């Protein structure tokens, strides 16, 4: 009895992946019957009232925001992880780990509030004028900065895990040949762990891809293809969160929002299955 109950629970929870995928696909299928897939993905014409659903603006701004986040988070987390594993004393980690824990535990709405209070005004009053752009501050850059900080703890912990798996003998061999610590790190540790680093970055990418509330708060909500990082533009998750309330009132709108969710699902599915 106990056996079959546990078997059922395991099977059902495993099949949740399939159920979610099929459910989203079925709900999005009216939209895909209505217009072909390449039109949906590569058209920038977003007019739900006229039945035009081009996802390019949202896709592009999602890509921009994620790219900015990765560009900010990867160097910082890589340097921090190297410092913690290769350079610092173990005692020092006792102070850094709680800080990373806090950073990783804060809800995304708190990051959103922080972004609005600090990052958005900074972009509109300092960074925008410095580049000669007038910006409200609600921009993809703000979203990228906030997201970058959100994925920092994940990246640092993944990198630390990867770096500690490198056998000490390899480092000793490099040091005995007269290499400095940084040369050892560069030529031995980083080279040895490069595939792992790439995998960790892909995982963080998929995490940044689906983050909703914080980007909804700081990125703005315009449906146009962004031209610069100071542009106000809405990424995919923010699109769903901002418009789910209207989805019953416009034909095919619900299918369009489910299509957005389906895109997020497929991206996560692809990036996770690469790990295994």
């Amino acid at each position, binding site marked *: 009895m106990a056996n079959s109950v546990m078997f059922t629970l395991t099977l059902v929870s495993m099949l949740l992946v399939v159920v979610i995928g099929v459910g989203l696909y079925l709900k999005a299928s009216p939209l895909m019957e209505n217009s072909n897939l390449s039109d949906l993905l590569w058209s920038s014409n977003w007019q739900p009232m006229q039945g035009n659903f081009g996802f390019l603006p949202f896709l592009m701004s999602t890509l921009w925001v994620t790219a900015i986040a990765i560009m900010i988070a990867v160097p910082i987390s890589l340097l921090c992880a190297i*410092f913690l594993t290769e350079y610092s004393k173990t005692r020092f980690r006792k102070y850094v780990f709680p*800080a990373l824990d*806090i950073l990783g535990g804060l809800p995304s709405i708190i990051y959103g509030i922080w972004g609005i209070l600090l990052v958005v005004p900074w972009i509109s009053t300092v960074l925008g004028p410095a580049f000669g752009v007038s910006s409200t501050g609600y921009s993809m850059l703000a979203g990228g900065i906030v997201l970058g900080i959100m994925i*920092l703890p994940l990246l640092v912990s993944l990198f630390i895990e990867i770096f500690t798996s490198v056998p000490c003998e390899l480092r000793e061999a490099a040091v005995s040949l007269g290499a400095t610590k940084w040369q050892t790190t560069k030529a031995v540790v980083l080279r040895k762990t490069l595939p792992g680093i790439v995998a960790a970055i892909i995982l963080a990418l998929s995490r940044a891809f689906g983050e909703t509330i914080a980007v909804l708060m700081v990125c703005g909500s315009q449906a146009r293809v962004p031209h610069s990082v100071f542009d106000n533009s809405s990424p995919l998750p923010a699109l769903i969160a901002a418009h789910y309330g209207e989805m019953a009132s416009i034909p095919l709108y619900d299918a369009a929002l489910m299509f957005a969710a389906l895109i997020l699902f497929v991206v996560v599915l692809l990036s996770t299955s690469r790990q295994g």
Partner: protein
Amino acid sequence: MRFKFIEEKIFRSLMIAATLLVFAFVISIIYTIIMRGWNALSWDLVSRMGTSGLYTSKGGGGFLSAIVGSLYIVGASTCLGLLISIPVVFYLNVYLKKRSKMAYIARIAYDVLFGIPSIVYGAFGLTIMVYLGLKGSLGSGIIVVTLLIIPIFIRSMDEVARQFPRDILDATYALGATRFETIGVVLRQISPGIATATLLSVGRAIGDAASVMLTAGYTDNIPSRLSQPVSSLPMLIFNLYNQPAKEAQDRGYAAALVLTLIVLALSLAGRFITNRFSKNKLQ
């Protein structure tokens, strides 16, 4: 000085800068939230119901309904999540063989589920609700959050359970225990894992807004039935922040401070419990 030593110096200082930057981010976020939230926060605000619509007036915009709503959602979904994920972890690690195909596929499935963003869970929940003709309610919010935290539970407990020494199982079998009866031994051994998994899930569940936003509706009252809508702290912050009036936004910052304090307390409790629980663990 030779180039390699200059390089060493440069990168060393870059690393220290990066590590300090992490501290700077933590301090900046907490400082900003406390500074903006502290003045608006009062016990009166925390213990008051959020009278409908009047976010700016004296009697309105209290946090009580949102705090209780969050407790309902988090409490119920954590219990449900534990009830479902403990048998799954037990089955994966005791019933299935080490090289079982099913366990392999299951672990990949949980990895995928773990990575699915909460907005997708919310959208999925919404389609089911539309299909069944349900409105946003406490019940559907609890179910969606449960789905969201089950992979967190399973993954982090499974990580601990996989380290579990097989010899202990053999010892219990030798004493005449059935496979099911070993659950007592296994549970005691993975209890630190269960504790950290619970705290992780509670932290995720209490701060998650995207899924709850789509499935739980919004109200200013405390729900008394599963079919009634419910508010939660993140949704309260989001709604208060979107009000045009400054008083409402200030209350939003105060609510953000409350949520931050709760999350910090959970994080502290997590450190304490992991230290405590690992005492009776056999190595």
